[in-house]
């Protein structure tokens, strides 16, 4: 039995009636009616193996499906696409610091009014409460502004709403607000806008929500079970490991627990440098350190070489051995320096190039 028969029988057995399946697929998935007809017409000419048949069918389907693959950014579900990005909180963007102000204000106000038994507060804040707070002249202006902020940013509101249990129920609890504040406060100042800590929200690839802010773009389906169980994925980082000299941290092996060495503090604490400039300056200084090590080894080699002239045969042999060790060290240092330089240069170029293009196009996208 050929593979065509097998697939055909499987298709007929499991997907019967096939015609209905094709029709269903055609309508549900946009498969043009022409595809099946063309495939049927092509049948008479199909005489090769499965790959030939499949290739032909795929080719026909592709042309019927109007050309090339669509470019789409489909984040891995389950939050695994967040790996490798800067840490973030609650899935909420906070590009201008307004979210923190809004959440903080609402927490204080609704806690208070709750105690006073105001109809606005009952430990939970609904959209209606926000609308009422945004309109009411009895409400302090900063509360009106905070309510308006969450009303104007529905995606952000949903993410605040879901901070406690990951579910959007239309009610923001004090616990939701508290969690968002904690997560925002945990962000070090360098992290800039806070991002996502939970599941990816959205209904499809690269769609914009009703908020025009580019940071409120959400990609990917929610709760799509078959896709996204990738916690066990093997993650292979291609980040090059370079020199680690000077990176030790005493007994503390966790890299998150070290103090900056004094030699770098003047750079790292310089308020006139951007984070990018600080990183570049520190990396450059580390590269300089590697240069000094290389020069030091070369000096030692030169010294050994000049001393060898007046040595006995036995001492000369020892010197040769030392020289070989130095050569090996020099080779390693040179290689390490080269890697470091390439890494810095490559990242810097790609980052700058990407940033320039992104800046030019973000507004248009």
């Amino acid at each position, binding site marked *: 039995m050929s593979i065509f028969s097998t697939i*055909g029988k499987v298709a007929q057995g499991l997907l019967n009636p096939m015609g209905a399946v*094709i029709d269903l697929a055609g309508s549900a998935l946009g498969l043009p009616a022409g595809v099946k007809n063309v495939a049927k017409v092509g*049948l008479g000419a199909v005489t090769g193996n499965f790959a030939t048949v499949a290739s032909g069918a795929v080719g026909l389907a592709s042309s019927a499906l109007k050309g090339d693959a669509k470019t789409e950014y489909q984040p891995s579900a389950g939050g695994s*696409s967040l790996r*490798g990005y*800067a840490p973030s909180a609650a899935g909420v963007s906070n590009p201008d610091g307004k979210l923190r102000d809004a959440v903080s204000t609402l927490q204080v106000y609704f806690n208070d009014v709750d105690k006073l038994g105001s109809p606005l507060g009952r430990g939970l804040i609904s959209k209606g409460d926000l609308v009422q707070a945004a309109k009411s002249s009895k409400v302090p202006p900063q509360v009106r502004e905070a309510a308006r902020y969450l009303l104007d940013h529905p995606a952000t509101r949903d993410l605040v709403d879901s901070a406690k249990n990951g579910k959007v129920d239309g009610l923001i609890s004090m616990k939701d607000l508290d969690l968002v504040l904690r997560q925002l406060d945990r962000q*070090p100042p360098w992290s800039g806008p806070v*991002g996502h800590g939970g599941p990816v929200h959205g209904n499809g690839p690269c769609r914009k929500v009703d908020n025009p802010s580019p940071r409120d773009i959400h990609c990917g389906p929610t709760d799509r079970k*078959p896709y996204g169980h990738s916690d066990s994925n093997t993650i292979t980082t291609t980040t090059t490991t370079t020199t680690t000299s000077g990176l030790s941290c005493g007994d503390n092996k966790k890299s998150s627990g070290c103090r900056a060495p004094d030699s770098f503090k003047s750079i790292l604490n310089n308020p006139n440098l951007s984070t990018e400039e600080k990183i570049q300056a520190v990396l450059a200084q580390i590269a300089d350190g590697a240069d000094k090590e290389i020069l030091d080894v070369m000096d030692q080699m030169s010294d050994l070489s000049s001393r060898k002239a007046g040595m006995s045969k036995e001492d000369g042999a020892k010197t040769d051995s030392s020289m070989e060790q130095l050569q090996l060290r020099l080779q390693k240092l040179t290689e390490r320096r080269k890697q470091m330089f390439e890494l810095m240069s490559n990242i810097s170029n790609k980052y700058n190039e990407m940033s320039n293009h992104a800046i030019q196009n973000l507004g248009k996208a």
Partner: protein
Amino acid sequence: MDTTTPDNAAPSEADELWNRIKGFLKGELTPAELEGMTWEQAAAIAEAGCELAESGRLEEARVLFEGLVEMNPRDAAAHAALGTVYQKLTLLPDALRAYSTAIALDPLHPVALAHRGELRLRSGDDEGYGDLQSAVASDPKGETAAGARAAAQIAAIAQTSVSRSEAEQG
């Protein structure tokens, strides 16, 4: 300026930055983590890349997605999107490599699976059929364009196979 920090004090901003640089040099952190780039920022850049690719400005789209991949080599979605740009640029080996990297990072990534499957089948590699099946299994509702495309491809193959089977029998 006194820059010393007592041992029991909370880590300063400088310490935080230093720890990131150190983590990066040890290969523990990606350039995106080093630079403080969040997923939202990456998604915004990717959105621009998708728009550029859609409008045929493929070289610019390539720059954006290559940059994203460089910043975070662990982002399967960026690898897959870059693959589609390579595919449009007819850089098929590069496209296949990008899809395979994405699948290594996320074996259920529908975009990478669907397009790699199609490319493989077109080149006569019947392993591509398995990719298409996996793409449909991971995106059964066709929520991604790639998932819907894979379903259509499978339907076409199945139809051809049914007809072929009937012809063989009759």
